[in-house]
């Protein structure tokens, strides 16, 4: 229980660090979104100093840095990252409303990555046909080396323009989900497949596997009943890391496939230095990353009893020492 509380505290520290770091970088960097805004609104930089001062006060950027930081942090704790400088909307709302389509693509991509990456690894190490094993296990390195924007364009070319099976653009309906998800899943699934295959091979060479075989166990039992669960741990760690990357990857796929979503919002906000929106995105991304890894951490002891040390209970080894 204390371990869970400790992990939660760590997660909160990571979120705070993400907020602070993004504040430092975004607010202290040169460049002025207020000037950008006034400039774009009036078609030229001819706003009077009074106007500039008024807008500055409105956005609270004329306070000393520490006061700004304190105010921002307090507001952020209440889910308020300020107003978008570009559109004037609530930044949090803007980001959250763009979230569902992104989550749909990322979630679907994660499912595809785990199912196909894991499937290739399991089948590639299970099959006794050498050619098939070689073929399957050469797929992950290939998948990793293909750039995802290029894969996206290729998929559109083939499945939309030539075969006309799936829509190339847009964000309506399940069909529009397929191509971006596949694009996003490819590198992720490839990494999962590669790590799981490696880890399965290591496990299958362990002495305990020989004992299972000496019991008269079938190949299937050895593979699925024993090796897979031991091999899953490194792959699970990886899922936590790459799932966070799916969110980052959405910037590229959403641009390539012209989909609505957090990726597009991010790209737009960065290009006009819309700091509140960018910061909301950063903290949101950190939140997902931290949550996923927290879940992964809590799953470890379920998979491996050696990691589930009940405090207060001595292990056998310690007892024999004591």
């Amino acid at each position, binding site marked *: 229980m204390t371990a869970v509380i400790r992990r939660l505290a760590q997660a909160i520290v990571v979120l705070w660090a993400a907020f602070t770091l993004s504040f430092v970088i975004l607010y202290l960097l040169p460049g002025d979104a207020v000037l950008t805004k006034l400039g774009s609104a009036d078609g030229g930089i001819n706003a009077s100093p009074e106007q500039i001062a008024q807008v500055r006060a409105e956005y609270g950027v004329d306070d000393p840095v520490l006061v700004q930081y304190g105010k921002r942090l307090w507001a952020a704790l209440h889910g308020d990252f300020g107003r978008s400088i570009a559109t004037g909307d609530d930044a949090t709302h803007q980001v959250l409303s763009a979230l569902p389509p992104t989550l749909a693509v990322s979630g679907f991509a994660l499912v595809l990555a785990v199912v196909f990456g894991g499937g290739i690894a399991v089948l590639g190490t299970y099959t006794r046909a050498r050619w098939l094993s070689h073929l399957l296990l050469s797929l992950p390195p290939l998948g990793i080396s293909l750039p995802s924007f290029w894969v996206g364009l290729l998929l559109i070319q083939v499945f939309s323009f030539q075969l006309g099976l799936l829509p190339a653009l847009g964000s309506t309906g399940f069909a529009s989900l397929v191509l971006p998800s596949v694009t996003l899943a490819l590198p992720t699934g490839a990494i999962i497949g590669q790590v799981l295959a490696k880890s399965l091979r290591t496990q299958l060479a*362990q*002495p*305990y596997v*020989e*004992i*299972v*075989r*000496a*019991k*008269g*166990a*079938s*190949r299937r*039992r050895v593979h699925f*009943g*024993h090796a897979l*669960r*031991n091999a899953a741990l490194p792959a699970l760690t990886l899922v936590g890391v790459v799932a966070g990357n799916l969110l980052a990857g959405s910037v590229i796929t959403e641009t390539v496939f012209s989909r609505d979503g957090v990726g597009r919002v991010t790209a737009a906000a960065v290009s006009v230095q819309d700091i509140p929106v960018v910061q909301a995105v950063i903290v949101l991304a950190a939140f997902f990353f931290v949550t996923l890894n927290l879940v992964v951490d809590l799953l470890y002891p379920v*998979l*491996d*009893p*050696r990691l589930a*040390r009940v*405090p*207060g*209970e*001595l*292990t*056998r*080894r*310690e007892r*024999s*020492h*004591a």
Partner: protein
Amino acid sequence: MSADLLEIRDLSVCYRTRTDTVHAVRGVDLTVAAGEIVAVVGESGSGKSTTAHAVLGLLPRGGRIDAGQIRFAGQDLTGLSEKDWQAVRGTEIGLVPQDPTVSLNPVRRIGDQVAEVLLIHGLADRREAPARAVELLRRAGVAEPETRARQYPHELSGGLRQRALIAIALAGEPRLLIADEPTSALDVTVQREILDHLEGLAAESHTAVLLITHDLGVAADRAARIVVMSDGAVVETGPTREVLAAPEHPYTRRLLAAAPSLARTPLRPRRPPGPDVLVAVTGLAKTFPLPRTRSGPRAVRAVDDVSFTLTRGRTLALVGESGSGKSTIARMMVGLETPTSGRITFAGTDITRTGGEELRRLRRRFQLVYQNPYASLNPRFSIEEVVAEPLRAFRVGTRAERRARVVELIDQVALPASVLRRKPAELSGGQRQRAAIARALALHPDLVVCDEPVSALDVSVQAQILELLVRLQDELGLTYLFITHDLAVVREIADQVAVLRAGRLVEFGPADTVLADPRAEYTRRLLDAIPGNTRVDIGDTQR
């Protein structure tokens, strides 16, 4: 010979690698009758383990049977399909492995792993299997089997894990058990209990055992017949008594002479303590903290109030089983660990209260030789760099002088000069340990602490290393602190013996007294557990 359960005829096994083919087993003949215990004895690379695995159809990758037959109960096993093998393994032939600490699936409960054998072969259904597994564990000598069945492997000691593996091997009531070095990873007292138990179970159920071992002592105690293997071939075979009494093959004779468990004379006359005290240990204690719990902080007392003295030119053997604290003492004596309390005086200086530059200067005078010669040499260094490293670290001499010293050291440990440019991986285990000894001697130390220096080596190599250590002691006037779990080795080299148990010194005295007439009950148990003790003595009155 229809009475034979297992009949191996002219078996040849080779391993194919990308570049070449290694013939691991060449034309081996071997028979095991029903209910008989046959020991296959040999050193690493003799092909004994490969033969055992061929009988189970579990050759490692790249291994293949070239020629010959393995007949089991009249059926030739060499042509079996994987499916047919699955019916043989577990119910006809069982396996007890070498290292119990890595032979159980870490993420499944002990009971489930025992019950699995019953489920695979349909010997029990899901409802009754757990209870049967508990019963099997009880038969294998596991105390509180209900609790143990619910635990995971890491919660059990090595001995208990081996018992669980014996339960697994016997679950399908096989007619033949293959025991591949079943106890070489365990402490001697545990080793003895487990072998006794295994022998009893086998006799009770009339199970034949093919016992693979490097230890002639174990073979002598347990087997009716012995098969001696060397370099992939059987060099001698016969009833245990005859093979040990009148070995025909020179290799068997060499093995017999080298087996520490069968040797009974010291390598040199034992010396009484001298006048010049080099090391004095008083009231030494070491406590390690454990993760804290609700009930407050906890700690393990690894070393508890240990005192002894060691005089110059003598060998003190520090004996104990795993967890006895012997390695912790060794680490404290060379300054790698700080005692919680107590004093270690080295040549008049208390090293526990010395630090910095003075300790560094003292360090030159005591050196450590580790257990595992495979891990203690930097794999990227050449042997010359390995041996010269202490000289470089203490900036001794010029480059040419250092080189001359290395050549001299290599010669002292009887290695050819050609090894200087080689990497550790190109040397055999014995050669590596010689290089490690040369490194330890580089700075002319007074004291050499040897932490199980021969336990990872084959017996004939063990004997050579022990002889080397004794010769060097005489030539260089060295003092040894010799840490070991093996009382047989102690018998050969120690002047004084200190017996440790659970961090406490249970006995300390001259080697002859401790070995011949131990005061402590525990020492007696250790001595009784040495394999080879129960064999019938031939032409030797001393026991």
